[in-house]
C-alpha cells in the first residue's frame, strides 16, 4: 500500500480548473519532486493535501485513510507536515517557540497541568524543549545558541527557510511537503540544503514531496518527478526521462523548435 494515494483529484476555483484528473501515489521513503511552470497548480496541490483547500472531487488517501473533510490540524496529526513557499513563520515568536509550538498535536497537557505544575507537565515541557533543540541542531549551529531566543523575524532569509523546515519536522510527520525550500537562497546555501533533504529521509525517515524550480536540486534529490501544467499531470518518472520529454519542454519553453536550439 502506498503512503499517499491520490485518485482523480480535481480543484476548481470559479470556472478555472486549478487541478484536474490528478492521479498518483507516493511510496513510503520516496522523495518526489513536483515541477511545472508558474500557475501550474503545484501549491494548490499542497494546499489540498494539507487540508487548507477542499477539493472539488476526487479522493486523497493517506496511510489507508481518507483525509477529505478533515481540518488541517487533524491532517497534521495524521502525519502530514508542510512548509510554505512565502515563508510563514510566527514572526514574533522566538526560534525555539516556533518549533515548540508545532509539537502541539503530539503533546497533551492542558490547563490543570500548567496550574499545578504536575510532574507529567514538567516532564512533557522538558521533552518538548529537548526535542526542539535536537531538531534545530540538525541545521548546524545556525539556529541554536543565542538564536534560540531571537524572534523569527530577525533571522536571515535562509535561516527563516531552515526554521520553516524545522517547524514542520517538529510535528513528527511521516510525509513532509516542502514548498520551494531553496527559493531565494544563494548557491552555497542551496547546495547545503540539497544535502539536508536527502538526510531528512535517510536519518529521520520522512517521505518527502518537494516543489522546486531549481532543476539542479530536483535532479540531485528526487527519486521521481511529476510535472504539472495547467493543473494536469503531463509526465512523471525519473528525472532524466522527464527532462527529455517533449511535452515537458513544451510546457516550460513554449515551442519545441526553440527548445532544440
Amino acid at each position, binding site marked *: 500500500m502506498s503512503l499517499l494515494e491520490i485518485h482523480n483529484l480535481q480543484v476548481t476555483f470559479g470556472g478555472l480548473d486549478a487541478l484536474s484528473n490528478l492521479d498518483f501515489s507516493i511510496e513510503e521513503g520516496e522523495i518526489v519532486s513536483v515541477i511545472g511552470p508558474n500557475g501550474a497548480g503545484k501549491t494548490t496541490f499542497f494546499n489540498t493535501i494539507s487540508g487548507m483547500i477542499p477539493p472539488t472531487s476526487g479522493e486523497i488517501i493517506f496511510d489507508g485513510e481518507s483525509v477529505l473533510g478533515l481540518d488541517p490540524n487533524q491532517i497534521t496529526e495524521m502525519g502530514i507536515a508542510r512548509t510554505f513557499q512565502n515563508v510563514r513563520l510566527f514572526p514574533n515568536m522566538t526560534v525555539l*517557540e516556533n518549533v515548540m509550538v508545532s509539537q*502541539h498535536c503530539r503533546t497533551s497537557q*492542558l*490547563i490543570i497541568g500548567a496550574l499545578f*505544575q504536575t510532574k507529567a507537565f514538567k516532564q512533557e515541557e522538558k521533552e518538548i524543549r529537548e526535542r526542539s533543540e535536537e531538531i534545530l541542531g540538525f541545521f548546524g549551529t545556525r539556529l541554536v545558541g543565542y538564536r534560540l531566543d531571537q524572534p523569527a523575524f530577525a533571522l536571515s532569509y535562509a535561516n527563516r527557510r531552515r526554521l520553516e523546515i524545522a517547524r514542520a519536522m517538529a510535528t513528527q510527520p511521516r510525509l513532509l511537503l516542502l514548498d520551494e525550500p531553496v527559493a531565494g537562497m544563494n548557491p552555497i546555501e542551496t547546495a547545503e540544503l540539497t544535502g539536508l533533504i536527502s538526510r531528512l529521509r535517510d536519518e529521520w525517515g520522512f517521505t518527502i514531496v518537494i516543489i522546486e524550480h531549481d532543476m539542479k536540486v530536483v535532479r540531485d534529490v528526487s527519486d521521481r518527478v511529476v510535472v504539472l501544467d495547467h493543473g494536469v499531470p503531463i509526465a512523471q518518472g525519473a528525472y532524466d526521462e522527464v527532462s527529455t520529454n517533449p511535452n515537458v519542454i513544451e510546457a516550460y519553453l513554449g515551442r519545441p523548435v526553440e527548445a532544440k536550439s
Partner: protein
Amino acid sequence: MMTTNLTLKKPFELNWKRILFWGSICALSQVFICLVGLPSELNRRILIESTLSLGYLFILWVPLLFGYVVSKIVKLEGIENPKQGAADLLSGALTGLLGSLGLVLLMLGIDNLDMRDPLINWNPKLFRLLTFENSISFGSLVWIPVGVGLGTVGASLHQMSSQIRKMTAYAMFGLFSFAVLEDVIGDLSEGFRLEWLSDMIYAKKGGMTVTSTIVLAIVLALLPLLVQGKFKKTVDRYRSEAKPEDKRRNSVVLFSIVAVLVLVLPWFLGRIVNELLANVGLFLLLALGLNIVVGLAGLLDLGYVAFFAVGGYTTAVLTSPNSPWFSPETHFGISLLVVVVMATLAGLLIGAPVIRMRGDYLAIVTLGFGEIIRLLFLSDWLKPYLGGSQGITNIPAIDLGPWEVRGADPRSVFYMVLAFCVLAIYVSWRLQGSRLGRSWMAIREDESVAEVMGINIVNSKLMAFVVGAVLASFSGAVLAAKVGSVFPKSFEILVSIIILVVVIVGGMGSITGVMVGSLVLIGILGGPRQPGLLQEFQNFKLLIYGALLVFMMLKRPEGLVPTARRTRELHQEEYLQDAWLGDDESEDREEVGEQL
C-alpha cells in the same frame, strides 16, 4: 562647520507658519475646553485658597504647553543644534497671545450671539468666569498678558539648565498633585495619625493656603537636589545585575517588599483609598481575564461584560433572600463553585458560535452578544426569575468564619479581591509559558498557519474564552457581594470598553502592564460607575479616557509597561537595526566564508 553655520537661523527670524499653526491649535484647545464645560464645572474646586481654582487651571496649562511645543527643535545626531534664543521666547509669547485671542473672541461671541442650543456651556456662567465678573475689556486685559506670559514661560523651559528645569517640573507636578489629591491626602494622614500635617497644608474651606503653597513649592523644588539620580542608579544597578542567581534574589526581595506593602498598607489607609483599591482590584481581575483573551490569544472580545454579569447574577440568585424565583440562600463559597460552572457554560455558549470568526467580525459579534446578555437580564421575559430592571437586592455579606467581607468595610473587600487577583495573576503567568499559552501565541500570530501546524484552533480559542470568562465572573461575584445588589445597568457595554482600554493602555499581554493600567485608569480616573482619585473629573472621564487612548496610540502603542515581545512587534525595524549593528550579521558572513 561652515555648512552647518549657513543653515542656522538668524537671531530674529520667526517661523510664522509654525507659530500660526500652534497658536491656532492653542486657541482652539482653550475654546474647546471652555465649551466642554471643564472651567465652569470645576471652578468651585479650589486649588489654592482665593487664588486658583481647578477650572482656571484647565485654561492656564494650555498656553504653557503650546509655548513649550512651538519652540521645541528637532535635534539630529551629528548636526549642530540651532541655538535657542530670544526668537523662540517670542514664538512662545505669540502662541500664547493667539490662544488668549481665542478666549477674547469666545467672550465676544457669548456676549453677542446666542448659541446655547447646541452648546450648553455657551452661557453667562462661562462669560462671568472668563471676564472675572467684570467687562470684556477687563477680561481681555487679564487674559492677554497671562497668555503671553505663560507662552513665554513654556518656551523658556527649553533654555533653562536641566537642573532648574527638573526643579521646576518637580515643583509644578508636586503642587498639582497636592492640590488635586486633597481628599486623599487628608484620608491618608488620618490613617497615619498625621492630621496636623494636612491641617497645616490645606485651608479649612478647601484648597491649599498661599503660605503652604510657597513652602511646598520650595521643598519640592529642592527635592531633585536631594534625590539627584539616586533612584535611577538603583534601577540601573538592579537591571544590570549580571548573574542570574543575583537577579533571582533581587526579584524575590522586590516581590516580598511589594507583597508586604500590599498586605499591610490597607490598615493605614482610610476609607476612601481602601474603597478605591477595592475597585481597582475588581477591574484588575476583569482586565487580567480580558488580557488572556485579547492579549494572549488575540481574540478581540467586546462583549466581555457578559461574563462579569453572569458572575454577579449567579451569586445574587444563589445567596440573596430577595431573589424572586429561586433563592437557596447558599454560602458564598458554594455559589462560587456554581459561578465557575455557569461562567464556563457561558464561555462555551458564546464562544462556540463566534469562534470561527476572525478579527473585526469577532469583535462585532461579541459586542452583540454582550448586549444580548444585558438585555436578557433587563427583559420582561426573565423578570420573574431575575428581577428585570429592579435587579436583585439584599445580597448578604461574604461570611468567612471570623471575618466578614461586606461593602461597608472596603478593607475586607480589598483583601478578598486581592486573593482573586493573585489567583488570576498566577493563572495568567503559568498558562503563558505552557503548551496552551504557546498555541494562543501562534493563533494570534497567524491563525491558518497555526492550524496547519497541528493546533486545534477551535479548542485553544474556546479555552482562552473560558479562562477569561471564569476570571470575569469572579469579579462579578465579588462585586455583587460588595455592592449588595445587581442591576442590569451595572453591566453596560461601557464596562467592556473601559476594561479593553485598561488592557491597551497598560500593555497588551503584559501582566505588570495590566496592573499598572488599572491602577492608573481605574485608580486615578475611576471606573464606569466608580469614582477614582480625581473625583472632580467624574463627568469628563470619558473625554479623558478618549484623549489618553489617542495619545497612547500615537506615542506609545505598545502600552505603559509592554512585554518585550510586543515592543519588538511594534518596533521591528529598530530591533532589526540593533541586531544588525550587533554581532549578528558578521557571524553569517563567517559561515559563508568557511564554506567558500
